[in-house]
């Protein structure tokens, strides 16, 4: 996975090997269950559209962690002017975001390795 110096070279690597290095703007192209023994579990969206619209969650934050954000904002509103009481909710939300990013990084690395395998002809489809 990306070490700190790798980030600076990532653009050069993408420029040199555009067929192997996935662009950060591209979604995964391979079958999601390729190489897994049992089917992967789907990510579940817990907060509904109705809830998010009611809580006025910005469109950029309507991801798989939105329910934790709603809890955090509700907690803040209940405990104002002592939002420090919501440290648990905030930590839960930020952890969810962190795990979401780890998942995206894993997906990227998987895509990269599968592309490399496919180019070498080692991939059995």
């Amino acid at each position, binding site marked *: 996975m990306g070490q700190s110096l790798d980030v600076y070279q*990532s653009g*050069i690597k993408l420029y040199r090997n555009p067929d192997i290095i996935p662009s*950060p703007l591209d979604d995964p192209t391979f079958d999601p269950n390729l190489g897994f023994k049992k089917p992967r579990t*789907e990510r579940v969206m817990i907060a509904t559209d109705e809830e998010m619209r009611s809580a006025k969650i910005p469109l950029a934050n309507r991801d798989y962690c939105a329910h934790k954000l709603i809890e955090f904002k509700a907690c803040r509103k209940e405990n104002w002017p002592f939002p420090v009481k919501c440290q648990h909710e905030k930590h839960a939300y930020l952890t969810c975001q962190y795990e*979401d990013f780890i*998942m995206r990084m894993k997906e990227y690395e998987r895509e*990269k390795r599968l592309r490399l395998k496919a180019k070498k002809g080692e991939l059995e489809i």
Partner: protein
Amino acid sequence: MSSSQIFKCYNRLSRLPLNNSNSVLVTSVRNHWNKDYKPGPFPKTEAERLAAAKKYDMHPSEYAPYNDDGTGFGDYPKFKAQSAESKDPNYPWDFPEFKRNFNEPLHVQFDLFREDRYDINYRPNPSCKVQFAQYIGVMSLSFLIYWLCDQVKGFLPAVPKQYPGVGKKHYTFD
């Protein structure tokens, strides 16, 4: 007329209100003007030209008046414009404050070219063309470097953010 009378006269004239007085008189007194400052009429014939050259103590081949186009310079000769700022500061001028010698003829716009005014002989170094070329060069180089770096822009190794939506499926790694 004694000096005190002159002073009295001068003083009285200088305090005249402008709206009901002879404005020419007021101007001449206030600004120390006298008729000798005024150039003669524009020389139309060769004889007049020679006379004007002699009047200004110049050789007829050097003497050239301004065009008679209504600016009122009359027979006053053209001199090469040189501002005081570009004159030699080490030369022992008779009037160092103007960098001017006694009886030295003045350019028509002498009051514009004094040291505290405009320097008509100023030439930028490097010249304007070179400065423009330098500007274009620096800016193009900057944009070239920006463009080159933009081709290999770094990014975090992650797929685009996953948002739930109709027909979209995302998977965990559990």
